[in-house]
């Protein structure tokens, strides 16, 4: 993977799958020189894809400017442009892809389409030193238990309906909680949950290595409307139940694959309660517990830049005519020749 004059090669990654617009710059050795993120935060309700895309288009200029400034890299120094090609929300992905194509053709450098889910795993491995982990990737859009086997990251378990992060977000909105920059809904729920101590029975749904959160969310939201419980207790119970579910399936994957590392990645990885649960099962199976640092837990451009480096080193380039976005690009569809 290492090049002769590695320090002279740089990659820029663009992330725009959902509510974050991010630009990251990485060296070919995996040193992250910049990682700038602008978050779209709706006044009310969830992510409106078109509004989020509008935000990305408006924020792009400033995010790029900051990234170049922070890294001290000039656009002319870039070896290629990596972008998040999917999975994600159409309008958001298209905005990022358009910027990527424009930049690549202007600079006359190759384009590298990156799978967003794989990028979350790769940045986790880069930042924690994990080599061959069972990965629990939990965010607002995804809940996946994955591990590498024979050329690809295989999906061992995933959510059958909504993502864990989505479940927490919607509950928080239903409860009338407010999020702000630096304090997303997940963090608000986490903080409130520390004030709860009464475990209210909620549906616990594990099917093999898969999980389901929609019934849990409905039950929690219904209890909320009844108003018989403290919101803190509901936050606590929701977290304990949902986290126990993903921890159980992670443990199943760990027992099944007998791997020696567990990696926690994605936006919800920033939750300390979830960290403590996953750490506990890792320890029980003599596996090392690794968690991605929080600035790389959320959707970010650095993970795209770095995964682009890995792919590009193995000759992966995406011709512009094939750079259409892939809204439902599953992670096990991607060959990962850089992992052995």
């Amino acid at each position, binding site marked *: 993977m290492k090049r002769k004059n590695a320090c002279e090669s740089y990659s820029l990654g663009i992330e725009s799958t959902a509510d974050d617009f991010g630009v990251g710059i990485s060296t070919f050795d995996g040193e992250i020189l910049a990682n700038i993120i602008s978050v779209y935060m709706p006044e009310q309700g969830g992510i409106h894809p078109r509004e989020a895309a509008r935000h990305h288009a408006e924020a792009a200029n400033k995010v790029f400017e900051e990234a170049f400034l922070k890294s001290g890299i000039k656009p002319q120094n870039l070896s290629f442009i990596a972008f998040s090609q999917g999975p994600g929300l159409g309008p958001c992905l298209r905005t990022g892809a358009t910027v990527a194509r424009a930049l690549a053709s202007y600079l006359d450098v190759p384009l590298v389409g990156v799978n967003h889910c794989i990028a979350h795993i790769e940045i986790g491995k880069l930042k924690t030193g994990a080599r061959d982990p069972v990965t629990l990737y939990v965010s607002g859009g995804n809940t996946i238990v994955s591990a590498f086997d*024979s050329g690809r990251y295989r999906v061992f378990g995933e959510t*059958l309906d909504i993502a864990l992060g989505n479940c927490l977000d919607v509950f928080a909105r239903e409860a009338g909680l407010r999020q702000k920059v630096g304090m997303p809904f997940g963090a608000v729920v986490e903080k409130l949950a520390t004030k709860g101590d009464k475990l209210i029975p909620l549906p616990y749904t594990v099917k*093999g290595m898969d999980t389901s959160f929609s019934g849990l969310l409905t039950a929690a939201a219904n209890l909320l409307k009844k108003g018989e419980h403290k919101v803190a207790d509901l936050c606590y119970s929701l977290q304990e139940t949902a986290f*126990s579910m993903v921890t159980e399936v992670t443990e199943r994957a*760990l*027992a*099944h694959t007998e791997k020696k590392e567990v990696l926690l990645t994605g936006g919800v990885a920033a939750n300390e309660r979830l960290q403590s649960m996953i750490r506990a099962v890792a320890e029980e199976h003599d596996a090392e517990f690794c968690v991605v640092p929080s600035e790389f837990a959320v959707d970010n451009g650095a993970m795209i830049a770095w995964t682009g480096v890995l792919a590009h080193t193995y000759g992966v380039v995406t011709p512009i005519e094939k750079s259409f976005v892939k809204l439902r*690009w*599953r992670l*096990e569809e991607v060959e990962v020749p850089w992992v052995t």
Partner: protein
Amino acid sequence: MKPPLLIKKGAEASLYFAEWHGRKVVMKRRLPKNYRPSMLDEQIRTYRTNHEPQLMHEAKKAGVPTPTIFLVEMGDATIIMGFIEGKQVKKLLGEVSKSERERLCVEIGELVGRLHGYGIVHGDLTTSNMILGVDGKIFFVDFGLGEKTKELEARGVDLQLMKRALKSTHFLFAEECFDAVISGYAKVLGVITAKSVSDKIREIERRGRYVAERRRES
């Protein structure tokens, strides 16, 4: 009595090999999980320890070989059951010939068909939960996530999970294996039921996130 020997530290239970009144047995113990609240932990362990032996017994009535239950100890969430001499289907599938693999998968399909026909879904149909005994019979184990139901949805989820497990563990021949499973399933429950379950599986898959077949619509 010799001290129990740990065979497998599974995710939710530890399996020990032991001798018990002159018999070779497996002790399945669901140890407390410290990561989850004790109330939730106890609820899950008690429910599954109580539920699993019942389903294993029902499965026998359906004509699906399962280990004999000798003792259920609710206090420490332990089940003592007969030890099955044989080999895990998970390890077997990659070692045998194509035709033998097909024969095994058809038989597995028949067994799943019998379970479903009797109103049981297994809940964790992976090849690690199937043992080919020395007597040539395939035993199903680990009914901890099973349910008594005849619902089409539950049957579909049961088999879709198996399909996914085949894909992640036996990706080289997952498709031929699953086709064989479905043909065995159809032998027992009839082509019409098998077709409706297959359709259900497809529907469940399409519900999933980032499904290839849904791409054209997006």
